[in-house]
């Protein structure tokens, strides 16, 4: 199989190497020169501008460096471009729903009901493909851009092929009906998908005098080849009434066609009974042919031969069948009622001129019941994993796949689902579908999710929250912590302290919370007010995450109480912050300074005991300083301490008097 290669436009192979870096959704490529010892690297293979067929990789210039003739260029190379096609969104979204439904469906159902359930799932997938096809077709009609039109048309034909293959797989593998009904399904399949002749049929049927139409017999033949006996007989009757000389022949042929034993769905005959009937009928046809009954009308004779399953006679109508699989099914219909494995004999049909196309290879593998081959060929032919991932998953639910042990997924189903889901993660919104797919990959799903989810670009808070919710639901604690840390860092760097704090709280990152609290307090000391009051006021129990955070919260509460003029409560809190050592020592001076207005109030707020406590705190603070520090203290510091001592003394005096005169206090 050819390796897809992609030309990176503009990158010059003769003078430069290509270096690269993996991104979450793409590979970045740019020109460089490797080699340490200077000079040019050794001669490269000649790439004389040969064009390579576009594979599943696409490259485009992503950006250019500023200035200079030798400015470097950056190229973006992406795989799985399909996920960016708007019209395919429906395919991805709806199939996701079907997939989830299938995973959750009841496994307890056994036998017929389970099979019916699986067939319904298969039909649902197919109807999504068809719906997409319709949309794509509409888009092709509506567009005026010839390039887009051809693109849409190509996609339509690829979707058709996908539906064709899926339909066949449904018939052969999912439904896997017994011989008779299987044949009926295959006939349906052929009628639905081989449509070249439909125009011709329509033309003849709608003409005034069908039997006079030059293509009349072609249409009759089509009906016979497709096992549409009633329609064939109906047309023939027109011919008979127009041509009385043929009446006898017609009657016989009509009778033969009517009597042909066709397996019907409600058939209760046993296989043996069916075979006997068929044998008998076959002999009857043989007799009429040998007697020369149809000798005078080559058309009717050829029909009789077809009924007898004469390969040459059927082959003669090659052009009416258009495809080898039509040929196959027709032969099945007329050679044996019980569908035994039959040689494909594609060579008969194609006549050795052309080699099988990818589609043919896939269908062949299906008819040969080589499931793994089907999946492998589809993986090669299709440019994204959607088809094989979903089909394989369904076949796995039908218990048709053996599991090979491998380390990229415990079996092929998981391997393909992991590939598909990984592809979805490159997309800015489809990644959410990918999460569910990973959930249903028991062996590597979780670790793949862990790796991918960390790389989702968190450009907005909403996206970050969405990602977090997903991680939290799955107890992915490390990822939660990491994402919160990244967001907190980002916020901190941009000086959005409130945001940084709430992210640290969510991450339960005590160290970071302490750091940010310190920043808040520093900002307060410098500016005299708090930012992000809402956040700090509503910390609640998360305040306990770190001591510094607790202090921040309580300190803010102090300010609030003061603002609400609830002075005694404020006083109590303030004191407690120091005595309970919630406040860091470095902050005590600020707190004591905050106490000043409370000490200076007309009303006495601090009790005697509280005042003694405050004094003790002040002494602890000043005593704690070394002589050197005291020496370095500027005048303002010394003055502050003096003022405090004075205020405390005055308060003490007042409160002693107050407590002394009133009963109690």
């Amino acid at each position, binding site marked *: 199989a050819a390796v897809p290669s992609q030309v990176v436009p503009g*990158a*010059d192979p003769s003078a430069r190497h290509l270096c690269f870096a993996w991104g979450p959704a793409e*590979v970045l490529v740019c020109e460089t020169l490797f080699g340490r010892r200077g000079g040019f690297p050794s001669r490269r293979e000649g790439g004389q501008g040969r064009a390579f067929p576009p594979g599943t990789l696409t490259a485009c210039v992503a950006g250019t460096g500023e200035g200079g003739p030798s400015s470097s260029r950056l190229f973006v190379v992406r795989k799985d471009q399909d996920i960016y096609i708007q019209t395919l969104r429906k395919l991805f979204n709806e199939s996701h729903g079907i997939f989830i439904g299938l995973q959750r469906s009841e496994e307890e159902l056994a036998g017929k009901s389970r099979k019916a359930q699986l067939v319904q799932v298969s039909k649902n997938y197919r109807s999504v493909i068809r719906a997409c096809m319709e949309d794509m077709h509409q888009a092709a009609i509506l567009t005026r851009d010839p390039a887009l039109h051809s693109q849409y048309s190509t996609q339509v034909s690829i979707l058709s092929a996908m539906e064709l293959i899926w339909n066949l797989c449904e018939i052969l593998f999912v439904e896997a009906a017994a011989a008779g009904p299987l044949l009926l399904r295959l006939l349906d399949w052929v009628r639905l998908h081989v449509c070249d002749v439909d125009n011709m049929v329509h033309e003849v049927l709608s003409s005034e005098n069908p039997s006079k139409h030059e293509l009349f017999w072609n249409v009759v033949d089509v009906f016979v080849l497709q096992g549409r006996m009633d329609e064939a007989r109906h047309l023939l009757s027109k011919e008979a009434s127009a041509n009385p000389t043929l009446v006898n022949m017609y009657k016989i042929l009509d009778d033969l066609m009517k009597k042909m034993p066709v397996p019907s769905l409600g058939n209760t005959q046993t296989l043996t009974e069916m075979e006997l009937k068929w044998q008998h009928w076959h002999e009857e046809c043989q007799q009429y042919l040998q007697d020369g009954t149809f000798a005078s009308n080559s058309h009717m004779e050829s029909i009789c031969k077809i009924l007898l399953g004469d390969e040459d006679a059927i082959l003669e109508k090659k052009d009416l069948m258009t495809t080898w699989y039509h040929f196959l099914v027709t032969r099945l219909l007329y050679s044996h009622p019980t569908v035994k494995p039959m040689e494909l004999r594609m060579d008969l049909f194609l006549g050795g001129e052309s080699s099988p196309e990818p589609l043919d290879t896939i269908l062949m593998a299906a008819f040969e019941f080589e499931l793994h081959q089907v999946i492998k060929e589809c993986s090669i032919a299709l440019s994204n994993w959607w088809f094989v991932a979903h089909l394989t998953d369904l076949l796995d639910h039908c218990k048709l796949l053996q599991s090979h042990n491998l380390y*990229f997924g415990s079996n092929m189903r998981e391997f393909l689902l992991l590939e598909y889901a990984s592809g979805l993660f490159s997309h800015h919104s489809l990644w959410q579908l990918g999460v569910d797919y990973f959930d249903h990959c028991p062996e590597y799903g979780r670790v793949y999710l862990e790796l991918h989810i960390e790389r989702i670009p968190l450009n907005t808070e909403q996206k970050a929250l969405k990602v977090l919710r997903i991680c939290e639901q799955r107890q992915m604690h490390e990822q939660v912590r990491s994402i919160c840390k990244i967001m907190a860092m980002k916020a901190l*760097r941009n000086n959005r302290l409130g945001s940084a704090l709430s992210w640290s709280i969510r991450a339960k990152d005590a160290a970071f919370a302490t750091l940010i609290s310190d920043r808040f307090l520093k900002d307060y000391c410098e500016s005299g007010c708090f930012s992000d009051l809402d956040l700090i006021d509503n910390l609640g129990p998360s305040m306990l995450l770190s001591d510094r955070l607790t202090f921040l919260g309580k300190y803010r509460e102090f300010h609030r109480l003061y603002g609400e003029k609830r002075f005694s409560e404020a006083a109590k809190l303030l004191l407690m912050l120091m005595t309970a050592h919630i406040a860091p020592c470095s902050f005590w001076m600020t707190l004591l300074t905050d106490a000043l207005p409370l000490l200076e109030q007309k009303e006495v707020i601090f009790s005697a005991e509280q005042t003694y406590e405050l004094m003790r705190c002040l002494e602890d603070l000043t005593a704690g300083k070394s002589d050197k520090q005291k020496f370095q203290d500027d005048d303002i510091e010394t003055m502050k301490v003096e003022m405090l001592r004075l205020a405390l003394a005055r308060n003490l005096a007042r409160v002693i008097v107050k407590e002394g005169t009133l009963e109690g206090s």
Partner: protein
Amino acid sequence: VWDKSENGEWHCTASWKTHSGSVWRVTWAHPEFGQVLASCSFDRTAAVWEEIVGESNDKLRGQSHWVKRTTLVDSRTSVTDVKFAPKHMGLMLATCSADGVVRIYEAPDVMNLSQWSLQHEISCKLSCSCISWNPSSSRAHSPMIAVGSDDNSPNILAKVQIYEYNENTRKYAKAEALMTVTDPVHDIAFAPNLGRSFHILAVATKDVRIFTLKPLRKELSSSGGLTKFEIHIVAQFDNHNSQVWRVSWNITGTVLASSGDDGCVRLWKANYMDNWKCTGILKGNGSPVNGSSQQGIFNASLGSANTSLQNSLNGSSASR
């Protein structure tokens, strides 16, 4: 430094000259530590950089500022590689030099990028060209670092060495040497560990090689000694037909990219049967660029077959 803007376009937002010799490598720290880069150079130094969020005008002009936080000057020869350790190890980085010394530094306070201390010096005896930390955060594996050498003198010494941290001695010691790699090694990369019991290592040398290293059970009697590994080569590709300069794994460690003297980037992937194959080639063609165009949606290989399928949409399908 390039930034991707809101509309998906890449812009060069900072460009500055600082080292006094070629800059060999540049690497990002994990975003948990902020926007941090490390560079290493022929000028015998490695440096750590942090992006400072500047004035809002700068943002509008699309420029960002990078500040050097520290210069690591311990090396006496060209510093050929610098790599940050996996984030679960804290803020740590390793450098390797042309004189064969690997140095491991740590910043004990992750908020202070100016303070780094040299924790380990490993002498590899051969001139080093590249290093790779094992990204596995599993407690089952000790910290591990692979070192590649591009020593050109004719000898058959192993050019890839694996060093492992020993909890008991609190030092890194050589655990393994890949004896089959005797040609100069230009790059080396551990794959992300998906919870596997073994490690995968890619080597860029005269070809692309992929090894698996399976830890063998430690003897119970050993004094917490080094792990011994069972080494297998699972892939070897000479498609570049020349020296391979870089190898790098994608996020899940399922695709390896390599670039070489042939000017191509090649992509390697294992199928579900564990067979490694080339799954893509990127090549320059030297033609001028006429603006960006995105082509190639679905692969057209299936589409060529059936026009009859298209007709089914025209409402002319036969129904039973």
